[in-house]
C-alpha cells in the first residue's frame, strides 16, 4: 500500500488513494470511500517519471495518478515496462549532470572534427563545382561595396610592374594602388588586387613587392575567397540545423554574401598563398628571399600598436618566416636581375618613399 493522488479527468480535484502494485496491473482504493476501487492494466496506461521525484500515470479515459512516494515509484518501476527506459532521453533524464557532461564532451569532439576536417573538405568540394565566372561576379560585388581612393599614377606603375612577371594563370589580374593610412593589401576573387600606399612605403626592394603580388595572386588563383565562402556557408547551415532553428537558414544564406568584405583568410590559406607565391617567384627567376624580407617587414609592423587589418589576419608571422625559409632551402632556384623591374620599382619608390 502506497499513498498517491488521483484525478478523474472531470475536475482538477485530487483525491487521496492507497495504491497496490502488482506484476501486470495496479489498483487503488479511495481513502474516503473504502468500497470504491479502480484497477488499471500496465498495458493500458502511460507512465513517466520526472527527476526521479514524481511518477505520473495516465489512463486514456479514467484519469490519472500523481505519486511522489519514493517506495511506490521504485516498486512501480520494477514492474512497469518504461518505453523511455532504453532511449537516449531516458538515460539523460536519469543521469542529469553526469549525462550532460559526457554529452558535452562527445559533442565538442564531434564539433571539432566537423569544423576542422569535414567542413573545409565539403567547402572545397562545393567550390570546385562553381565556375570561375562566379569568382569574378563575387569580386565585382565586393568591389562595389568597398570604396577606395585609387591613385591612378601609382596604379599604372604597379600594373606595368606586374606585367613584367609571368603569373602563369588563366585569370586576368588588375593591380591598383589605393590611398589609405592603413598598411594593407588584398585580393578580391576574380583577380582584382589592391595595395595600399602605406604598405608600398614600407617595401624596400622589388623582390619584396614581387613577393607581395605573388602572394595575392595565389589567393586568387587558388580561390581562397570562394573556398572560404563555401566553408562558412556549410558551417552556418550545419550550425543552424544543429540548433534546430530552421527559420534562420535562409537568412544565413543571404547574410553570407556580406562576409566577403571582411576578407580574412585562415592560416592554412595564407600558407598556401606563401608557398605558391614562392613558386611564382622561382618561375620568374626572382630572388625568393624577397618573401622572407616581406614577412620581416610585416612582423616588424606587427609589433606596433596600430594593427592593420591585413596583417592581423596573417597570424604568427614568425611561423610563416620559418616555413618560407625551409621551403627556399628545399627548392633553391637561380635568380637574375631584371632591369625593367628595377626601373619601374624605382619609379614607384619615388612616388611612395618611406
Amino acid at each position, binding site marked *: 500500500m502506497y499513498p498517491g493522488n488521483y*484525478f*478523474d*479527468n*472531470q*475536475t*482538477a*480535484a*485530487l483525491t487521496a488513494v492507497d495504491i497496490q502494485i502488482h506484476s501486470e496491473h495496479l489498483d487503488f482504493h479511495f481513502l474516503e470511500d473504502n468500497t470504491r476501487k479502480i484497477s488499471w492494466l500496465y498495458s493500458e496506461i502511460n507512465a*513517466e517519471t*520526472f*527527476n526521479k*521525484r*514524481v511518477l*505520473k500515470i*495516465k489512463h486514456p479515459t479514467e*484519469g*490519472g495518478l*500523481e505519486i511522489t512516494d519514493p517506495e511506490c515509484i521504485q516498486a512501480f518501476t520494477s514492474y512497469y515496462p518504461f518505453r523511455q527506459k532504453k532511449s*537516449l*532521453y531516458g538515460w*539523460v*533524464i536519469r*543521469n*542529469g*549532470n*553526469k*549525462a*550532460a*557532461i559526457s*554529452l*558535452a564532451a562527445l*559533442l565538442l569532439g*564531434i564539433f571539432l572534427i566537423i569544423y576542422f576536417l569535414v567542413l573545409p573538405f565539403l567547402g572545397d568540394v562545393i567550390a570546385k563545382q562553381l565556375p570561375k565566372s562566379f569568382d569574378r561576379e563575387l569580386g565585382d560585388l565586393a568591389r562595389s561595396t568597398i570604396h577606395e581612393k585609387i591613385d591612378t599614377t601609382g596604379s599604372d606603375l604597379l600594373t606595368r610592374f606586374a606585367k613584367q612577371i609571368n603569373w602563369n594563370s588563366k585569370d586576368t589580374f588588375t593591380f591598383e594602388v589605393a590611398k589609405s593610412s592603413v598598411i594593407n593589401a588584398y585580393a578580391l576573387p576574380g583577380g582584382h588586387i589592391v595595395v595600399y600606399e602605406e604598405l608600398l612605403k614600407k617595401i624596400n626592394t622589388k623582390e619584396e613587392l614581387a613577393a607581395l603580388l605573388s602572394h595575392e595572386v595565389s589567393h586568387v588563383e587558388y580561390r581562397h575567397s570562394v573556398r572560404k565562402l563555401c566553408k562558412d556557408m556549410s558551417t552556418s547551415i*550545419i550550425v543552424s*540545423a*544543429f*540548433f*534546430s532553428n*530552421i*527559420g*534562420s537558414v535562409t537568412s544565413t544564406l543571404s547574410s553570407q554574401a556580406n562576409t566577403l568584405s571582411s576578407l580574412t583568410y585562415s592560416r592554412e590559406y595564407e600558407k598556401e598563398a606563401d608557398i605558391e607565391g614562392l613558386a611564382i617567384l622561382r618561375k620568374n627567376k626572382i630572388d625568393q628571399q624577397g618573401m622572407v624580407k616581406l614577412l620581416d617587414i610585416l612582423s616588424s609592423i606587427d609589433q606596433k600598436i596600430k594593427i592593420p587589418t591585413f596583417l592581423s589576419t596573417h597570424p604568427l608571422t614568425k611561423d610563416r618566416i620559418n616555413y618560407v625559409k625551409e621551403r627556399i632551402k628545399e627548392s633553391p632556384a637561380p635568380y637574375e636581375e631584371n632591369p625593367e623591374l628595377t626601373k619601374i620599382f624605382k619609379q614607384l619608390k619615388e612616388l611612395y618613399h618611406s
Partner: protein
Amino acid sequence: MQQVYSATPPKDLINQPKLNFIGSGGTYFGILIVNALLCMVTLGLYYPWAKAKKLDYLYSSTELEKSGFTWSGTGNEMFKGFIKAIGLIIALVVLNITLASLVHKAVGAIVYFVGIMVIIPLAIHGSLRYRFSRTSWRGIRFGYRGDRNVFFKMFLKEMFLTIITAGIYGSWMIMKIRNYVIGNLKFGSAEFSYKGDGWEFFVLNIKGYFLTLITLGIYGFWWQADLFKYYIDNLKMVHGDKSYNFRSTATGGKFAGVLILNLIIIIFTLGFGFAWAQINLFKFIAENIAIDGDIQLEELSQTEEEYSNAMGEDLVDFLDISII
C-alpha cells in the same frame, strides 16, 4: 493592478497557489543536445520530435500547487504539421519565382508578401489551438477558443494600420491581439482575460526606450521589469463569480541580477551554459508571478476538446513568430 472585490469574500477562501519551476540545467542540456544530435543526423527532419521532447520536459518542470503541467503533443502530430508547413512555404516560393519570371518581378514579390501576410495569422491561430489543447494540469485541458475568421480579419486590419503608421500603431496592435488571444484562453471551466491598453503600452515603451538610451542601457532591466509587470498584472482568471489576479513581484534590480548572471554563465562556458541560463530564467519567471484570489482549483472541470492539427505550430516556427 488593484484588485476590486464586489464583496469581501470569507477570509478562508482566499488562496495563493504557487507556481514553481523545478527543471534542472543538466537534464535540460542533455535533452537539447540529444535533440541537436538527432536533428543533425536526420538533416533537420527530427525537428518535430525534438520540439515535443523539449516541451514535454519544460511543461513537466512547471508546477502549480505541486502538480506539474503536462504536454501531450507528440512528434508524430507535429511532423505531419511540419510536412504541410514545408509544402506551403515551398508552394509560395515556387509561385513567387514563377510569377517573377513569367509576369514581373514585382508581381511575384507582392504575391509572396501577401501570401506570408495571410499565412501569419492563420499560423498563429492554428498554433494557439494546438498548443493549448495539448496542455493540461491534473487532467484538465487548456484550450483556445478564438474564432479564426475574427482573428484573421483583426490581424490584417491591425497589421495594415501598423504598416501605414510606420510602426507607431504597433503597441496598439500588440495589445489588441493579446487582449483577444488571452480573452479566448480557457483552463477547463475557467477563463482568462487580459486588459491591455495600447496607449499605456506605448508610453511604457517610449519611456523605456529613451531612458535606456540615456542611461547607456542600464535602464533596460527596469524596462524589462515594466513590460513583465504590464503583461502579468493585467492578466486575470475567472471561474464563475470567482477570480484569480496575477501580480509580478519582479523588479528591475532582480531582472538585472538574473540576466547578468546568465550572461556570465553563457560567456564563461563558451555558450554551453545556455541551457542552465534558460532554466534560471524560467525559475525566475515562475518565482515572480504571484497569484491570489478565491478560485478553488479543485472546482475546475473539464470543458475543452482535444485538437490534433499541428500545422500552425510548425508554421510559426518557420516564420519565426513567438506566440504570446
